[in-house]
């Protein structure tokens, strides 16, 4: 066990799998010589060579399509979209080709698409988004959204080993800010198993990614204010998502706040809220509340972006209101 940043943990997971399995290779814009825009793959080309760490032209469609072709030939490609926003350019290859190939003709497509995502740095409308909702709607794709360094490594390893196309969302605001214990050596985290980030009894916050930490600060504040005990469930993966863990927490607390950084309408929180309403209605003591970004593009100016992203104050206020219900 060693303390690592979230970014180092992703690198470790990638490097371990590349050392273990000669079929794993990386392709993306600036991932080789430069080591990736965020330096996740720094030093990889020196260790694994130009054939396994490939600087591609600016061609998201070809990057993802090439991964699919290589995967069909038995490789385990990992590609990087420099920013998750750019995955829109590869939408067709993911949704039309990779997601449906196994259902149609039974050929697995084991690819991983790395997606540096999320806002908070004035990245503006094209370097800040959380596009997981588009893909959560597409059967055939899997989605990982790690929050902790240990999960960043474990889910990366599991994503590479998974026989399906996996979208791996790595939140940029966690890269260097979040540090934590990461198991050395072999460490894989199963998909579809949520993690209890904080145990509580009065109210459940269902969340993932960077919002786990926003929820944590708000929960600390609630505990200090009036002793409200908040449980935080970190989903870890959205496809599949751990319905049992969520419903179990609802049964325990009776009050739920669903929190994500993606925008509101048809966001993944809507699926969670609808499922709770349908399957845990009898356990609810209050309406399910959703805190998300509003339905607008991600704005650039710090004042606007702060108003856009869910803040600790927003979550704390919602917790207070919900616990008084």
């Amino acid at each position: 066990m060693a303390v690592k940043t979230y970014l180092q943990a992703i690198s470790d997971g990638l490097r371990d799998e590349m050392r273990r399995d000669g079929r794993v290779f990386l392709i993306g814009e600036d991932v080789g010589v430069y080591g990736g825009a965020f330096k996740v793959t720094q030093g990889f080309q020196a260790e694994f060579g130009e054939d396994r760490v490939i600087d591609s032209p600016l061609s998201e469609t070809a990057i993802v399509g090439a991964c699919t072709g290589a995967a069909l030939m038995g490789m385990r490609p990992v590609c990087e979209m420099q920013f998750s926003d750019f995955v829109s350019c590869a939408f067709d290859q993911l949704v039309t080709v990779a997601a449906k190939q196994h259902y149609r003709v039974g050929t697995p497509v084991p690819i991983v698409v790395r997606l540096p995502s999320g806002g908070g740095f004035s990245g503006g409308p094209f370097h800040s988004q959380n596009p997981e909702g588009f893909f959560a709607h597409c059967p055939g794709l899997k989605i990982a959204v790690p929050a902790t360094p240990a999960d960043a490594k474990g889910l990366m390893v599991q994503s590479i080993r998974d026989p399906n196309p996996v979208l791996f969302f790595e939140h940029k605001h966690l890269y260097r800010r979040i540090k934590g214990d990461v198991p050395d050596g072999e460490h894989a985290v199963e998909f579809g198993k949520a993690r209890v980030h904080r145990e509580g009894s009065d109210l459940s916050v269902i969340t993932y990614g960077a919002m786990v930490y926003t929820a944590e600060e708000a929960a600390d504040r609630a505990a200090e204010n009036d002793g409200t005990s908040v449980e935080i469930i970190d989903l870890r993966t959205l496809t599949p998502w751990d319905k049992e863990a969520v419903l179990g927490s609802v049964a325990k607390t009776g009050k739920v706040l669903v929190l994500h950084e993606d925008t509101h309408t048809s966001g993944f929180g809507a699926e969670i809220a609808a499922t709770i309403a349908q399957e845990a209605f009898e356990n609810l003591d209050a309406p399910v509340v959703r805190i998300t970004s509003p339905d607008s593009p991600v704005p650039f100016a710090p004042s606007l972006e702060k108003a856009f992203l869910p803040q600790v104050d927003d979550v704390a206020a919602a917790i207070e209101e919900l616990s008084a219900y």
Partner: protein
Amino acid sequence: MAVAREAVPVESAEDIRQADLDREDLLQIYRNMLVTRGIEERGHILYRQGKIPGSFYTGRGNEGAAVGVATAMRADDVGAPIQRDMGVHITRGTEPWRIFAQYMGRADGLARGRDGNVHMADIRLGLIAMVSHLPAMMPVAVGAALSFKIRKQPRVALGWSGDGAMQRGDAHEAMNLAAVHQLPVVFIIDNNQYAYSTPGRLEYACEHLADRAAAYGFEGVVVDGCDVLTVYREAHAAIEKARAGGGPTLLELVTLRMEGHAVHDDAFYVPREMLEQWTRRDPIERYRRWLKEQGLLDEPADDEISVEVKKLLNDAMKRAEDSPLPDPSELLDGVYADPEELDTPHHR
């Protein structure tokens, strides 16, 4: 301004012997073309009988192009053919009864009823199943070629597109990536002059689509797609060049789509004289004539082949009709792959 090379037609049997084809190979090409057309003609009948759900597409006029290219592929080469390329599936060994079952949405179709038409492929035969969004399979073929380069395997990938599909960005990204990394891939354009109802002049403004290859830094060749032997020779040369590390080639195979986009379309927009002119260039008739002129096929042998093909297809249709529709209880099977599916020699 044309920049692509225009392929000189194959003339004699001696020409073609130099490209490694003996008499049996030449007759197999003939059989494959007949089976290809025969399957689509029978499919058309099945469609009119109401036995094929959805729509139905044929590749009449493209048999020479498809069979010619596929004949030039080696056993462990890989291709992602498109909707007029039934001849590729036949040449690679796909069993006709499974194709009829595919048409009818049966459990023994290559897509087991999850997809129809030519949206099929047997990966064990080195084929990758197309999607409708052409040319989405061009980048996929490039990825197969990338894996061959990484693993230093002497294999070649082929990616198909059409005169319409070439106007989408996937084609550009795929050809550019392949050129930058000198990948062992050959790009094939089935230029049948119409993308649904839209003629080539409304799809592109260069003289030949193969002219574009020069802009990516590799060779483009315009080939008479109705001439199976010239197609074979050019495909063979391009494939072996790629295998030897010479990088990609773009082959534009020019034909005319002899039927509508799909069976509902009577292709009223294709000038009658044009159809008549291209009927005279029919790839099968032309090849049969050549085989006879070269003394490689006589009437009795031709009759024998024709009887053999008819029997094969009639038996195949019967067998396919016995295949059940998929069971609704299997609806959700296979949306996701299981880990043990990767535990195969192919994926290890």
